[in-house]
């Protein structure tokens, strides 16, 4: 079932703020203009490796939970 976008989050505005303006689409200004490079792929692997280490050090997960989570991430490397 299609659903609407979520409402806007509350803002931490210290001065009395005017109501938030409508969302503006700035994707063109922010969009990546170049294809993924080998460096991107290496960074993605490093990014995921960091998450794997985060799992290994997690003081709350069981060994079985860690194994499953690591396997999931390794499949994405």
């Amino acid at each position: 079932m299609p659903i609407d976008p979520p409402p806007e989050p509350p803002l931490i505005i210290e001065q009395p703020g005017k109501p938030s303006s409508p969302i503006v689409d700035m994707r063109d200004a922010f969009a990546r203009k170049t294809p993924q490079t080998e460096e991107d792929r290496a960074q993605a692997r490093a990014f995921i490796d960091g998450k794997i280490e985060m799992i290994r050090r997690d003081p709350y997960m069981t060994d079985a939970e860690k194994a499953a989570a690591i396997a999931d991430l390794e499949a994405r490397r």
Partner: protein
Amino acid sequence: MTDSNLMKSPTPPLNRPHTGTEDHQARFAAISARTPVDEEFRTAFLRSKLHIAQTHPSLDKAARDQAVAGLVDRLGQETAEMEDTQPRPGGVGEGFFYTPDFKTSWGLGTSFSCDFVCPVPPGGNVNTWLYLTATNRSGLGVEAFVSYNGQDTPHFRVFDWSRSDPWQTDIPFTSLDNYLTTISAHGVLYPVLPAWNGTWAIDAETYRNQALLYNNVRQGWDLVYQYDYAATDSQQKTGWIGSWAPIVETFQSLYVNTNAMGALGTWLIGSDNNGLWGTWELLSPSNSYVRTDNMGFQLVFLDSNYAFVVDS
């Protein structure tokens, strides 16, 4: 104290039979003398003790310095000269994780917002990657986060877990003047980047990931990234990905003298199974927990569990 008052050794533990004590000191000493000295192990042992003293999360800076000085006094000057600088990714300097129940307690959509407290530069000894990041609970959502690399200009980046080409938006802070601002928390003004990302079903088989930044000039959210993809409810709610709320993700063993960083105002909202969005709620101890690895960071403050700032 006279000999008659000397304390005797205790009786042996009672949990196993004991037929008398024999003296094997000489034999063990001889074996030890023949065993090659493992300098790497000794160094690692001392370095580990130093690391614990330097990063103990419940000691303040003065107490850490005192602990290190005590170790040096006991173990020698060589201990003080050991640098704990080997890269060690995957730490959580400080941050929040969603409880398993909360991670999956949404229907067709989930969305997250916070203000990343992001100093420029990060300061201290940061010499590689350091992330201020978060997920919105979904397994295939985005991390729209602040990425440091040493003392270089930070970047705002989007890593999309639903894609095979996950690196998408990558914008240096020098191009984010309209989005970076300052906010006062606990009487201190902090530099922040307000960020919002969401994941929700747009039809029976398709989800949408979005990332937005708050434009402080026009006072409205700017959509900076969006991607639609095929996925199932199970893919979104199974697994570990999506479990971290705002965290300081570390890549070094020890952080020293870094500037204050963290997150303020962590809000979450979910929709029910009919697509009706609820209301934004601050993250709380009932649906999240704090994780602190020993990386040298210490709390400046923690508002349970929707805001924290750390330095080192």
